[in-house]
């Protein structure tokens, strides 16, 4: 009997023999599962017996990853970190945490409760961030879904709708409705440049009707997608449609220019994830796994490239220390490198020193009550044209007494400069006053707040050094990405997507693969 085994049956047999992992591997081999891009850095050759000493400058995500991978391959690693903690710009603030802002040292006054925390740096993980997800899986960091897009949240523009916040649901539905009606009419009158076949024309008309939920006469007269109006809810009372908003008022709002499409971007599209309990669970998991020594409060003073290694000097507790290593992985923000005594070749030094110092900043507010949940908002983002840009509602801790909202997200140097000039207390007052324009009594709900403007944080003074023009990326990025001798610049700054954890991991992956190739080549020679 020559029974042909179905794929499902085959996988069943594999499962019986080898368990779930075997099924997974077999499925991948059969092309039934997409390759999730398991990082190649996991296949590092064993370290050579001599010449395996590595010094890592900076205990940010890239530095931790490099230490984690290299010590598993048998390298002798040492990590030197300037600040008082590991994690770099993966910073979750909780009760009692130090906020290390230059000139404004302070302590986070959130209540001592596990759900009251604020991710000041990285906060979101998308499904295609396969390197981040690989390490979360491998290190056992629990993740949860985090709402980014919420139709019940608001769009707010002081110059539109009389300054009144409008539910994103209503804005989006009406915008699509108006657009669909126009589309329907254009197709109906055959106003396309290219003639449509009759079938295409009919399909297109149906597309327009479905997209905007047009009525029988192909007119947009409101849709239940905008939420019911006239005091009805569609459950205990028959739902009645809201009248569409005024088209010119809608066009007058800035929402459609950018924010309306924000959550379409691949890095922000639903669903997103975040570690349960705070983003710093990721660096904490690395720090737990790593055996290599990590010296905190150790500021690098000198980096010297030598023929067969790198020498590093650092200060720790008022004393000078030196390390001689075979390889150096440098995670230090690019703008600090010119301030460190070094013997880099001129082009290398100038390219690093010339990288654009970007800035981001967030304000977190502990609220006395979760008033937004009484406005039907559970997670997600309200967008405003005010300087605070956004308000984020926590997806976790639903129906608890208190919650921490993001009260401001400033993007880029111009926006952060406005907040950097203020004292931390002034920033919180400013964020409160802006929130009052959106939620009644918002500022009165503020218990306490934190602000982290990365451009003022000790040992950071910026957020995500980068290049800006296509010419710079083409000419200068390879200079920074490739090592100089045995010195590798690394970090999210050495990726095409700085400020994202996936960028940090991709830099670690590139540098480790590069090291691995030279080590393998040396072994063959």
């Amino acid at each position: 009997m020559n029974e042909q085994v179905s794929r499902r049956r085959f996988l069943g047999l594999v499962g019986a023999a080898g368990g779930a992992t075997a099924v997974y591997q077999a499925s991948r081999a059969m092309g039934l599962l997409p390759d999730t891009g398991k990082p190649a850095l996991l296949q590092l050759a064993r370290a050579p017996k001599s010449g395996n000493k590595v010094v890592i400058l900076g205990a940010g995500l890239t530095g931790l990853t490099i230490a984690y991978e290299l010590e598993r391959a048998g390298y002798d690693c040492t990590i030197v970190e300037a600040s008082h903690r590991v994690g770099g710009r993966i910073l979750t603030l909780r009760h009692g945490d130090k906020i290390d802002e230059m000139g404004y040292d302070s302590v986070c006054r959130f209540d001592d409760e596990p759900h009251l925390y604020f991710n000041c740096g990285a906060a979101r993980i998308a499904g295609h961030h396969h390197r981040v997800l690989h390490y979360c899986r491998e290190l056992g960091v629990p993740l949860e879904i985090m709402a980014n897009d919420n139709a019940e949240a608001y769009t707010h523009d002081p110059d539109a709708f009389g300054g009144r916040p409008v539910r994103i649901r209503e804005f989006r539905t009406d915008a699509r409705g108006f657009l669909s009606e126009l589309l329907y009419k254009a197709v109906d009158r055959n106003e396309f440049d290219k003639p449509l076949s009759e079938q295409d024309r009919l399909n297109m008309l149906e597309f327009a009707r479905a997209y905007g939920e047009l009525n029988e006469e192909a007119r947009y007269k409101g849709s239940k997608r905008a939420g019911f109006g006239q005091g009805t809810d569609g459950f205990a009372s028959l739902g009645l449609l809201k009248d569409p908003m005024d088209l010119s008022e809608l066009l007058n709002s800035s929402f459609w220019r950018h924010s309306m499409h924000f959550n379409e971007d691949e890095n922000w599209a639903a669903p997103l994830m975040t570690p349960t309990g705070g983003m710093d669970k990721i660096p904490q998991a690395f720090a737990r796994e790593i055996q290599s020594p990590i010296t905190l409060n150790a500021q690098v003073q000198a980096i010297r490239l030598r023929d067969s290694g790198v020498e590093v000097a650092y200060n720790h507790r008022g004393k000078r220390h030196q390390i001689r290593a075979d390889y150096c992985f440098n995670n230090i923000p690019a703008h600090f490198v010119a301030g460190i005594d070094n013997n880099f070749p001129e082009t290398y030094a100038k390219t690093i020193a010339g990288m654009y110092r970007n800035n981001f900043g967030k304000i977190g507010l502990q609220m006395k009550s979760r008033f937004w949940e009484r406005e039907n908002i559970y997670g997600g983002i309200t967008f405003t044209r005010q300087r605070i840009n956004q308000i984020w509602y926590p997806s976790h801790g639903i129906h608890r007494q208190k919650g921490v909202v993001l009260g401001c997200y400033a993007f880029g140097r111009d926006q952060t400069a406005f907040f950097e000039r203020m004292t931390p207390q002034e920033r919180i007052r400013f964020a409160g006053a802006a929130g009052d324009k959106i939620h009644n009594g918002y500022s009165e709900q503020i218990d306490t707040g934190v602000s982290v403007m990365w451009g003022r944080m000790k040992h950071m003074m910026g957020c995500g050094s980068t290049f800006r023009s296509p010419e710079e990326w083409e000419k200068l990025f390879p200079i920074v990405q490739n090592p100089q001798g045995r010195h590798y610049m690394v970090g999210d700054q050495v990726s095409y997507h700085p400020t994202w954890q996936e960028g940090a991991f991709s830099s670690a992956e590139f540098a480790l693969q590069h090291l691995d190739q030279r080590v393998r080549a040396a072994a063959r020679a």
Partner: protein
Amino acid sequence: MIRNTVATLALTLLLTLHSQACLADDPVIPDDKFVYCTVCHGMQLRGIEQLQAPRLSGMDAWYVRKQLDAFSKNWRGAHAKDYAGMEMRPMAAILSAPEIAEAADFVSKTRSPMPEATVAGDAVRGEKLYTSCGVCHGTRAEGNEGLGAPALVGGSDWYLARQIRNFRDGIRGASPADMYGVQMRAAASVLPDDDAVDDIVAYLNTLQPE
């Protein structure tokens, strides 16, 4: 044989000491509370242009004290157009009078290589223009404590140029209480043109610190 070994050992020790000296010969290691200064101004306060933080290595302690005082009194770093000054101001504001003296002492002991010239100008014209500057700052730009005029050699040239323009434009020296700042603002306001700033700085770049 033994002699050879001793000689080798001695040589090794010497080489080790020498290679350590390359990395460890800084004259001063900052106290933990002054690591703050090095975050932006760099190791041994050598200056970081990307952060607009000038070289301070070996700067006269009296001038450092005066400027920290000026920052803490909002004479400097309060103007809306002075972003870098704004970044500095909170750092000075947290220092007590004894800490200011301590910080100034630390700054004056730091040493670093002379900075590279980055400003291009007509040094010959700059020398002529500098004549009036030299009345206070000294003919060799060595500074004059009695007149409150700092040395102008050994600083970051891009910083000098920006500060002269800041004085000229009223961004610095705007507070009436800042006597020396007001004087300098008046002096900068008579510069004939914008090139004059770069020309003077280009001339200063030709001078060596004493």
